[in-house]
């Protein structure tokens, strides 16, 4: 993969050097999501709505709009066909180009499973990336009731998007049911979905633009979300008053998208960004982080804190947790457990002379691994190896490698269909873990 030249702007305080952020809503769901954004305050953000369906686009409240594939679909939409969405996007790449100009960060919002979002989003993500922008996609996965086909389309779209974008955050709509009661109307349900997308985007926007006491930047974000499949979830919570630290932890633990903390327990990497007013105390940070840290013992935690006048007496936390694919386990053993921003010069120096065993490409804006003595390194390896061994033994059950006794059918003629021995328990062949 060709690395774009590092963009230093995101490292700098946003207030002094404005970084250009663009938000693209792609497809029906994406357009709705950016409409929800418009109402809220995002300073200096360019919002563009893209759709193959000109009618739906007309209803969108975004500042800029573009109909994709007008010749191909005559503005009638992609009809749930990702191929058509992809083709429409490829037709109109030239029209999209001006919108990439000068962008440092492009957020892509889309609903996967349909035609335009699934097909066009990866193409546009690649375009933006080729033009030098950092691309972060925030997408929804379809409800289960939408059917297997849409689910499969969404999965394959997600894979394309993951290879095209720098980072993908994915919200499975099915999880929304936990937020809804029986009386919630369809309209409200989708409103909540859009609001969650918008909330996630604002949380991340804040994280990127605001100077931190303990800074978190795009590279940290990318290192959390990169290479993971459909398993990033995010949550935002706010609290005010005396007990805000305790309250915010309670709110996070009760957050439906975190499954009562279950997501944190299973996560491999967690990014926590904390924003408070000038009255934020160190004790409060500790009170917030301590329970979170305990919850995600196995995870690589990236922590950031920022001060904002607007947040006086208030505290806001944006949390992104992601779970790694099993086959990737171990690929990051040499990744330092904690990451802090350091200065660029030493980073380059360090990378040049780095030990060859770290073959993983460093993230574009990666802060350098902290300087360590040999002794410290060894200790780090030891602790991480232990962690990995634990993880591997936990994964063992999912692997179909163990020899399964076929019980009653051991001696009878095997039932083979489509190359599968149906005498073996289905759950073992499917790799469904029973904890």
């Amino acid at each position, binding site marked *: 993969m060709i690395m774009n030249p590092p963009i230093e702007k995101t490292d700098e305080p946003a207030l002094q050097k404005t970084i250009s952020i663009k938000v693209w809503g792609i497809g029906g769901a994406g357009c709705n999501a950016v409409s929800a954004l418009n109402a809220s305050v995002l300073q200096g953000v360019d919002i563009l709505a893209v759709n193959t369906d000109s009618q739906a686009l007309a209803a969108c409240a975004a500042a800029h709009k573009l109909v994709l594939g007008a010749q191909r679909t005559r503005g009638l939409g992609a009809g749930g066909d990702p191929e058509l969405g992809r083709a429409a996007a490829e037709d109109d790449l030239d029209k999209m180009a001006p919108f990439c100009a000068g962008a440092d960060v492009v957020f892509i919002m889309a609903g996967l499973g349909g035609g335009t979002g699934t097909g066009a989003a990866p193409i546009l993500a690649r375009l933006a990336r080729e033009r030098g922008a950092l691309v972060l996609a925030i997408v929804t996965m379809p409800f289960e009731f939408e059917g297997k086909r849409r689910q499969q389309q969404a999965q394959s779209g997600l894979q394309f998007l993951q290879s095209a974008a720098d980072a993908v955050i994915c919200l499975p709509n099915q999880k929304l049911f936990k937020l809804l009661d029986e009386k919630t109307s369809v309209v409200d349900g989708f409103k909540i979905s859009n609001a969650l997308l918008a909330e996630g985007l604002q949380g991340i926007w804040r994280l990127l633009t605001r100077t931190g006491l303990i800074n978190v930047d795009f590279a940290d974000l990318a290192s959390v979300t990169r290479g993971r499949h459909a398993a990033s979830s995010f949550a935002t919570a706010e609290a005010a008053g005396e007990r805000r630290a305790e309250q915010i932890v309670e709110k996070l633990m009760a957050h439906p998208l975190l499954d009562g903390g279950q997501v944190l327990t299973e996560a491999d990497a967690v990014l926590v960004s904390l924003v408070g007013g000038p009255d934020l105390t160190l004790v409060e940070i500790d009170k917030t982080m301590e329970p979170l840290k305990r919850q995600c013992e196995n995870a690589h935690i990236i922590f950031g804190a920022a001060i904002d006048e607007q947040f006086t007496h208030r505290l806001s936390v944006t949390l992104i947790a992601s779970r790694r694919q099993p086959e990737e386990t171990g690929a990051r053993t040499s990744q330092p457990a904690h990451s802090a921003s350091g200065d660029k010069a030493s980073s380059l120096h360090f990378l040049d002379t780095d030990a060859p065993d770290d073959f993983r490409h460093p993230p574009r804006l990666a802060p350098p691994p902290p300087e360590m003595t040999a002794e410290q390194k060894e200790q780090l390896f030891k602790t991480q190896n232990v962690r990995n061994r634990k993880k591997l033994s936990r994964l063992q059950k999912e692997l179909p490698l163990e020899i399964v006794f076929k*019980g009653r059918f051991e001696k009878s003629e095997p039932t083979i269909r489509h190359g599968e021995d149906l005498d073996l*328990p289905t759950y073992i062949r499917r790799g469904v873990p029973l904890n």
Partner: protein
Amino acid sequence: MFDSSSIIVGLEIGTSKICAVVGDINASNNLNIIGVGQARSRGVRKGEIADPDAAGEDVRNAIVEAEQMANVEIRSVYLGVTGNHVRGFNNHGVHPVVSADREITEEDVQDVIKNAKAINLPADNSVVHAIRQHFQVDEQNGILKPVGMYGARLEVDVHVVHGHVNRLKNSIAVVKGLQLEVDDIVFTGLASALALLSNEQKELGSLVIDLGGGTTEYVVYCDGIIKHTGVLAVGGDHITNDLAYGLKTPMNRAEQLKRDHGSALFEPGDKGQSITAPGELGVAPKTVNLEHLRRIMSLRLEETFALIERELAHLNFLDRLRGGVFICGGGARIPRIETLAENIFELPVCPAKTNSISGLKSALDQPEFATAIGLVKFGSLQQKRKPGNGLAGGLKRTLADLFKA
């Protein structure tokens, strides 16, 4: 007592139970069920005989019970056969009409059917059924009775069910070992469909799934004729085996858990619940996770249905099944099985009722008996057909000669 010629007995040698049903054709030519006999099956695996001695003993018990209940002596049976080796496919026969005026005669019909049955089967395989579908005269499709029509070319489609000769003989030998005659062998899936479907449902297009202990049979009816049959050697035994492995319990306890707490669907409400299997002699009580139990079970059933769905979708049958899906066999007793089938086939699923027959209503209206009742019905159709025209029936036995020899 009854005239023995009017007595028809259906015998199903199943994997989990052996079932004999006695029917009687009364004076007004109606079929009446007068006796049922059952025995637990021990000598059968995946629908085929694994231990002839045990199977013979179990068949005897079932037959004796049926004899006592019906108060008749059973001399011959219609025997249900199934197994992984049984396959169905459609074949086509062509015959030029030779008569000068191009009127189709009975001989032409016989010839075209003969042509359609000339099939290249693998060696050691023999035909169980060759079921006539629709005739085609010249380019005109869907003709039921071509005799008397005019045309130059007569064609016919037949659905052929065939199986491995020796493996079919195994179950026949078990019955013959008990000094009983085999009137005919019948594919059990076909028998179940006969018992469950009304003519209207066959016309509309229906799928019958017989979820047995060792095998799952499926039969597709469209436009009143059999379009497709198949066997999947996966059944209730597999669920029990999966549970025994997954829950680490002995087979008999897994079976009990399946019956008492099983469900075809895993629901979020089951999460974290556990059930206690009571202790028996020599076995300590054990607590089992309900979530695991149902998840293992629903995965297996889902896979079984999905395999059938995939096959039918490939053959473009799913859009033509307006009558819906009918589930019988012991598997039809699994709670929520209809919902699962509805989800997978995206078709209405109806509770199967063997309402096409009179007699012992309450005892018979159970999904397990569908096959045996269907066998009796098959027999009654054969017997009605015997006097008079011996060929016009849709079902013709071909193996009879083979096995009488």
